[in-house]
């Protein structure tokens, strides 16, 4: 049975309603977990959602892989951290400065890097991420090296200091919701359509007048800026950062979030981030063996559910319903 085609404004209304519902749930969540340990985990879900969305804009929409996004996350965190500790800058000023620096850097690196395709792009971004990681470790006069950077100030708004899990929850999720809304808008704009065109066929997109090369670089820079923002927020909520958080493994974890949730879906990124952030909490007894679960999940998802959870679960559900109906008829 064919569904009636919805008009554009109907679709937008539906999306807005969905987003409003989602925001409401997010804002009410602390009521259920008041003060519990889970609040702290949910703060991380927010940060990881931002990061997964950043990678998803690049990978899911523009079809360009990056295995070095943990590097931009770390760069944002360290720039914010160093500016507010060594140079006693106000965190609210440090955050945009860090984002601007990271964005410019990504824009400049983006030109040679995004000229590469597929496996080569993966390796080049991976190399970039590792170089950043080595820099975090080796420039200890600035970053504190492997022992980390401590004493990073909390954010402050008037007389409110964001120093508890509940306050941080609202801060982080406020920004995360803004990033989500922005990304969804972007995806549905002309830019979003151009990105998907580049994803499907770069040559066809160029023939239709999309400046594919510049667009890829711009989205790479935007993605890096979101990572930097998440990094700054991470630094100011944790007040301590060390290089291990920003290593190659975390880049892979981000990739896993995006793939599990679903490429090219903003809610998918949230789902992936939530699942992968909550999973280790349940696997706590399993020590470091959660790495096996990550690897297994990646392989299984790519093999059996390449569309991610957001598409795979409804498809699975439809299949089951269909089978039930068929067995009912027989």
């Amino acid at each position, binding site marked *: 049975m064919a569904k009636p085609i919805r008009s554009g404004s109907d679709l937008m209304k539906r999306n807005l309603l969905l987003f409003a519902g989602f925001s409401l749930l997010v804002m009410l969540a602390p009521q259920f977990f008041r003060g519990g340990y889970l609040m702290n985990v949910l703060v991380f879900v927010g940060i990881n959602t931002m990061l997964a969305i950043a990678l998803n804009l690049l*990978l899911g929409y523009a*079809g360009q*892989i990056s*295995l070095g996004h943990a590097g931009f996350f770390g760069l944002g965190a360290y720039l914010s951290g160093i500016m507010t500790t060594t140079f006693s800058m106000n965190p609210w000023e440090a955050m945009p400065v860090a984002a601007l620096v990271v964005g410019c850097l990504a824009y400049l690196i983006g030109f*040679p*890097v995004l*000229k*590469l*395709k*597929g*496996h*080569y792009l*993966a*390796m*080049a971004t*991976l*190399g*970039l991420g*590792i*170089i950043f990681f*080595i*820099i975090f*470790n*080796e420039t200890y006069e600035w970053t504190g090296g492997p022992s980390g950077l401590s004493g990073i100030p909390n954010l402050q708004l008037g007389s409110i200091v964001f120093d508890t899990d509940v306050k941080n929850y609202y801060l982080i999720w406020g920004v995360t919701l803004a990033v989500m809304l922005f990304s969804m808008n972007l995806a549905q704009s002309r830019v979003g359509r151009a990105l998907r065109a580049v994803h499907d066929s770069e040559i066809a997109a160029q023939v239709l007048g999309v400046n594919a090369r510049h667009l890829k670089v711009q989205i790479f820079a935007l993605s890096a800026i979101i990572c930097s923002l998440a990094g700054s927020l991470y630094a100011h909520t944790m007040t301590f950062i060390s290089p291990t958080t920003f290593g*190659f493994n975390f880049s*892979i974890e981000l*990739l*896993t979030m995006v*793939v599990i949730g679903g490429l090219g879906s903003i809610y998918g990124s949230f789902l992936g981030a939530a699942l992968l952030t909550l999973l280790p909490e349940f696997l706590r007894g399993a020590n*470091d*063996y959660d*790495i*096996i679960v*990550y*690897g*297994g*999940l*990646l*392989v299984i998802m*790519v*093999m059996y559910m*390449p569309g991610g959870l957001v598409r795979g679960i409804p498809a699975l559900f439809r299949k089951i319903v269909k089978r039930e109906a068929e067995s009912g008829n027989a």
Partner: protein
Amino acid sequence: MQFDQILQYTLSGLSTGAIYALIGIGFSIIYNATGIINFAQGEFVMLGGLFTLSCLEFLKLPLWAAIPCAIAASTLVGMLFERLAIRPLRQPTPINLVIITIGGSILIRGLAMLVWGKDTHAVPSFSGDTPIAIGGATILPQHLWIFAITLIIIAVNKVYFYHTISGKAMRACSYNRRAAGLVGIDVRRMVMFSFIISSAMGAVAGIIIAPLTMTAYDVGVMLGLKGFCAAIIGGMSSGLSTVIGGLLLGVLESLGAGLISSGYKDAIAFIILLLILFFRPQGLFGKADSERV
């Protein structure tokens, strides 16, 4: 700066470079036959070393018997990986292949951690640890083993690819898989072969380096990436240029670590990787061909 010191760095650089070359050739063989960059390549290096350890300690085999067993075991893992993860893939787009080989490598590494634990293990060297003086520098007998085995493997490779039917068939696949299929070459079997050869080579590399650097479940990541750098410098060839790429990388890294700063040793390889990818994606010795750009 003394000449002796530079000689010492160069010699030790050449031996690690030989390892990078072996791993790099493994990358190239799979890439040429299938168009896949196997991110799990480094894990076979780790498996080679750790399987040798198990054969020595649990099966109480002598070293000469433990090594072939370890190679066979790692190759089996390589075959299983191709069979269970790569071949059944429904949408083999480059991004899915990158993700699945990364997933596979994490899985193999995780399982290795489960089996061998997180400790670093020592593997005995093949023929003692008495240093040999060369000029003002010294090397270990194990270094000589590395050079000799690398040379033998490269020679065997050459013979295989140019003088046997299956080697020629594999080269045909690397030129054009469809055309190879049309003249009756079983492309799937060649893909399986390429995984067998490169996992065996990775395992050999892991076995001969283990006595020098020790081994652990996580050594594969860095070694694999360095091997990839070697292959990129060599323009993804499975011959001499990748060997030169590996040796060059090994020596530069060793000199850089010795003369500049040991902390940035790993960064050197990746800076070289980026520079080559940006400016000469066809490899240092390749003819201009923009296929990879």
